[in-house]
């Protein structure tokens, strides 16, 4: 089958008109890919507990590993402890890592990866306060003294920004 030149020209014009219309309807040049971190509070400290690229790639493995150590062996080193992450990364405005600009939620929303950490864990920071330590009973003087000293040392040696 052989088409005539006129038919070819008509076809080309139709196709070009289709793309022109699509371009016009889409509102011109497409938007750049949005950054998930726009407007997100990044954290209190100047650097994270590991290089940013490592944390982006492996934070879930770190958390998973730490979770087993913490629950089963009572190891509560602060480096990859979820509460430590939350303490540093919670947005002071919302006091949370969730929400539209929350450190965890914004990126996971963007990547469409649902996390269920915070259906159980608190997304809000909570620190041990001196007041909560002071209410120890006199009956436990030996333990109480030791506990108070430990806790106070912990509070003093552990400024809120945490990572070590």
């Amino acid at each position, binding site marked *: 089958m052989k088409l005539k030149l006129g038919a070819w020209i008509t076809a080309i014009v139709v196709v070009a008109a289709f793309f022109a219309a699509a371009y016009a309807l889409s509102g011109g040049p497409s938007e750049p890919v949005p950054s998930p971190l726009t407007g997100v509070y990044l954290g209190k400290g100047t650097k994270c507990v590991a290089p940013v690229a490592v944390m982006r790639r492996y934070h879930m493995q770190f958390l998973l590993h730490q*979770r087993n*150590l913490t*629950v*089963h*062996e*009572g*190891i*509560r*080193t*602060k480096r990859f402890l979820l*509460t430590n992450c*939350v303490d540093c990364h919670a947005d002071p405005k919302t006091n949370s890592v969730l929400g539209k600009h929350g450190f965890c939620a914004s990126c996971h929303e963007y990547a469409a990866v649902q996390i269920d950490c915070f*259906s*159980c*864990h*608190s997304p*809000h*920071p*909570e620190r*041990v306060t001196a007041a909560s*330590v002071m*209410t*120890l*009973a*006199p*009956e*436990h003087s*030996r*333990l109480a003294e*030791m*506990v108070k000293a*430990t*806790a106070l040392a*912990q509070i003093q040696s552990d400024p809120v920004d945490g990572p070590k």
Partner: protein
Amino acid sequence: MSIDRRQFLAVGGAVAASAALAPGLRLVALAEARDPDQAVTSLQRWGILVDTTRCAEGCSACVTACNKENGLEQNVRLDIRPQWIRTVTLRDEQTGYVQTLPMMCQHCEEPPCADVCPTGASFRRADGIVLVDRHICIGCRYCMMACPYKARSFVDENLTDQRANVPRGKGTVEACTMCVHRVDEGRIPACVEACNYDGGKAMTFGDMKDPASEIAKRLATEQSEEIRPDLNLDTGVRYQGL
């Protein structure tokens, strides 16, 4: 600053005396001060001794403290509200003698909950604290049926505002953790603290394997008993005056 001969000898003597003590021998037990990077070991076993004669009827200091510490005071229906510790009132029908005692997870050496758990979520930590790893709990509630003390609760509803140190969530079973987050940082459980502060000073917490601890000394010298000793569970919570 100058020191005279007498002071010099005194200081020198103290230094020599402390050096003469064998390395590894500590004058003050540091049992509670475990480093955060050290795993718990079976060299310790945490326990609670409850003197029920000092447990006053109507007092619920331990329950209130537990609810507060662990964030259990959620806005959920009363009939399904999780309960980690409760007060039990016993009445002798012949004599009318009434006694009250706190009842919670007994932190068994041989926990039936861990025996029946199909996923390994119920487990006993090396230092004797029985816990639920809610990351792997599937909410089957076998452990609730296996527990002879009715110590466990199921979370039926979505929760918000959990305490940072006490993660809890819908679809999992939970129970008294002996305030593991506090014990790990060298503090005592909230119920024991409250009982000694506001209550009848009936509860004692400590390491049952440390001969220097108050609880070990009292267990060695005073009568105490488990609840349901016939089950041979070797509980970590023991009672006096039942």
